[in-house]
């Protein structure tokens, strides 16, 4: 079991095992409190597993993984740093960038600015977080998760706090980023439309104890346009998934 060059599996929470191929976009959906975020924290190494085994790229996970970039529901940008400096933060921590920081600061800064511009933040790179809108903050936060070129991008409900229109904009931004960099993405969300629109594979988790109850491959061709979300096949998948979540009314 493990995350590999081809396909592999990770085990967490309770009897959860998911295999994620390199470059795949995986979404995990489920009712609130089903352990989606825990799963993510386990996989990223933020929380050590109490029991069981967890392997990523064939290696047991003992601590935080440098090959992972994370973004959370709150942008968690540091208020004393400009957008660019926030994006630079991982490079100040992760090797080999860390030791080269002094020599290559200008180049790194350039890279951060380019990345921010690629998500539509041109002209806002020198702004401080409080001068950015919620959507902009979240864009910067995703840039920060990507700057050190991780193999895996983990997103924990990154768009949950945004309004519907900004959210759809950011779906497209994320879609383009992922296509351009071919990064593996694991997205935790409770928004089924978001999951189906973005992901190759959607995993549905059940309520406590957190278990994977369904693995659903989205057969819609990529790259997808926002219009897709109004088509019947799309609606059918969302409807089917909604049935699996099984909240009582």
């Amino acid at each position, binding site marked *: 079991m493990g995350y590999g060059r081809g396909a592999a599996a990770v085990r967490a929470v309770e009897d959860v095992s998911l295999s994620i191929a390199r470059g795949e976009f995986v979404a995990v959906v489920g009712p609130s409190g089903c352990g989606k975020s825990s799963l993510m924290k386990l996989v990223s190494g*933020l929380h050590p597993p109490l029991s069981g085994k967890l392997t990523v790229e064939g290696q047991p996970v003992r601590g*935080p993984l*440098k090959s992972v*970039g994370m973004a959370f529901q709150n942008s*968690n940008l540091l208020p*004393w740093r400009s957008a660019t400096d926030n994006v630079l933060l991982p490079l100040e921590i992760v090797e080999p960038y860390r030791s080269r920081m002094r020599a290559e600061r200008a180049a790194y800064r350039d890279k951060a600015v380019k990345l921010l511009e690629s998500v539509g933040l041109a002209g806002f790179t020198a702004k401080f977080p409080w*001068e950015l809108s919620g959507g902009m903050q979240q864009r910067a936060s995703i840039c920060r998760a990507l700057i050190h070129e991780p193999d895996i991008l983990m997103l924990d409900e990154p768009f949950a706090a945004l309004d519907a229109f900004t959210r759809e904009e950011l779906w497209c931004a994320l879609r383009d980023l992922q296509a351009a960099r071919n990064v593996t993405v694991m997205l935790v969300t409770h928004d089924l439309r978001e999951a189906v629109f973005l992901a190759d594979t959607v995993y549905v988790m059940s309520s406590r104890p957190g278990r994977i109850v369904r693995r659903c491959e989205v057969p819609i061709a990529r790259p997808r346009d926002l219009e897709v979300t109004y088509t019947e096949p799309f609606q059918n998948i969302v409807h089917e998934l909604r049935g699996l979540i099984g909240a009582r009314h």
Partner: protein
Amino acid sequence: MERSVLALRVLSPAAFTVTLFVLWEIACRVLNVPLTILPAPSAVFGALWQYRAPIASNSIVTLWTTLAGFLMATVFGLLLGILVGWHRAIYAGLYPVMIGFNSIPKVAVVPVLILWFGLGEIPAILTAFLISFFPIVVNVATGLATVEPEMEDVLRALGASKLDIVRKIGIPRSLPYFFGSLKVAITLAFVGAVVSETVGSNKGIGKLMLDAQASFQVPIVFAGLLVLAFLGIVLYGLTAAIEQRFTGWAFRGRSAN
């Protein structure tokens, strides 16, 4: 815009101060208050001018003992604050000890300091230091201890060490607390220095006022008070300016844009 800020920041306090002095002068003249009880501002400023040489030389002593004690408190307070905020166990262990220490009225420590170091500037510096480091420690430690776990997660997810987290998040985040505490600390350091001079010293504004009081030169006592108030405002203004300069991000509403 610039003009209205000037009016608000400079003219308004100046007008209030002048009004206060005028009222004080009128009250003294109308009620015929004896000079030994409450001298009128004209008498106080007269004394200030007449004894400007001794007042200036003593002010400089008070000023430098205050600043020396304050600088010691700043360095020591920052380091101890980081240590206390570093880990919950250190926080829990050291905090009660510090509260106990801080509860001792510092006037009571001055005789001991004089016993150890003799009359002079060292007891004043140490009193200023002892009285002013506590708020710095408390504020820095609080700033460190209240870092949002989510913010730490951002760094921990990258494999950052505890030292990295403190350097990149803890310290910058507690800087507003630190600079905020400097404003309190400078005032306290000033109090400490003057208290020490009043208890036992051979120089300083406190000593000058004590001597003037002993010889019933009440206008000089009040002149000393005026100088103290003036120095207090200057020192406070300096630390407030430093605070604005370094932690503008925490005052976004007012200083940004």
